[in-house]
């Protein structure tokens, strides 16, 4: 069985990562976690987002929101890049997550065919 004390080694590594990063505005990814979002698969989407961030070693803030009224379009994922419009993606699948992260978060190109709403900055 793993021991929680192994976390202390991970802590030292994580602290170095934090120091190496600039403290500017972060990219934010927001997953809808209302009853509708959860029933539509938001939990799997959120975990896929974390997996991609870990794999690509990205500095992204992941947060959640409740029901915003577009229940039929869940799971919903918002990407908020500093200085850009907030883009809402709908009916997101786990396969779409890597597309959204590589195209939009890493390269700045919105994945137009998945967009359901935009909120001006």
């Amino acid at each position, binding site marked *: 069985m793993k021991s929680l004390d192994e976390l202390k080694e991970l802590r030292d590594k994580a602290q170095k990562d934090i120091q190496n990063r600039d403290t500017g505005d972060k990219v934010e990814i927001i997953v809808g976690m209302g009853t509708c979002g959860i*029933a539509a698969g938001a939990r799997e989407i959120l975990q896929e987002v974390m997996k991609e961030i870990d794999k690509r070693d990205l500095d992204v803030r992941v947060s959640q929101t409740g029901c915003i009224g577009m229940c039929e379009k869940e799971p919903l994922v918002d990407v908020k890049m500093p200085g850009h419009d907030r883009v809402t993606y709908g009916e997101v699948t786990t396969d779409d997550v890597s597309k959204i992260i590589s195209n939009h978060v890493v390269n700045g190109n919105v994945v137009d065919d998945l967009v359901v709403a935009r909120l001006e900055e």
Partner: protein
Amino acid sequence: MRELSLHILDIVQNSIAAEADLIRLNIVEDYEADKLVVEIIDDGTGMKEEDKEQVLDPFVTSRTTREVGLGLPLFKEAAEQCAGNFSLDSTLGEGTELKAVFQHSHIDRAPLGDIVGTIISFLVSNPDIDLVYHHQVDDEEFNFDTREVKDRLGDVKINSPDIIAWLKDYLTEGLRQIRR
């Protein structure tokens, strides 16, 4: 919901909305008594007497009480259709506790499902809320307390990707141990 763990994730959103600092999740699988018990206890704002009845009625809840909706009635129904029962107690200013009991072997009982995924999803977006998770399968038990994790992490956030990946393995292994 397809899994009880999805109900749990959903119900915990109410505790988050109620500004809980600490959430306790107890899951007891008792094969001898043929029962599966899920308890969620928080120290959030709690509810007024009249709201306690309303939150269980899917048709009364209005948009103004946004933090409550279909989640609780769905969970209650899930328990009651499995020869179980559901209770909710809440005190304004102290918190809310709910308990759902299922007949473990009931044919309509949804599987517990990916409870690790539920806990990880909660931790990712709620690094500042503590979770005490107790899971018992007959005589075996697994306990997880985010306060113990945070003690070891110092100023590193519990939702850092490295830490989340490690915790996912830790929880998966812990649960495998009690299911042997």
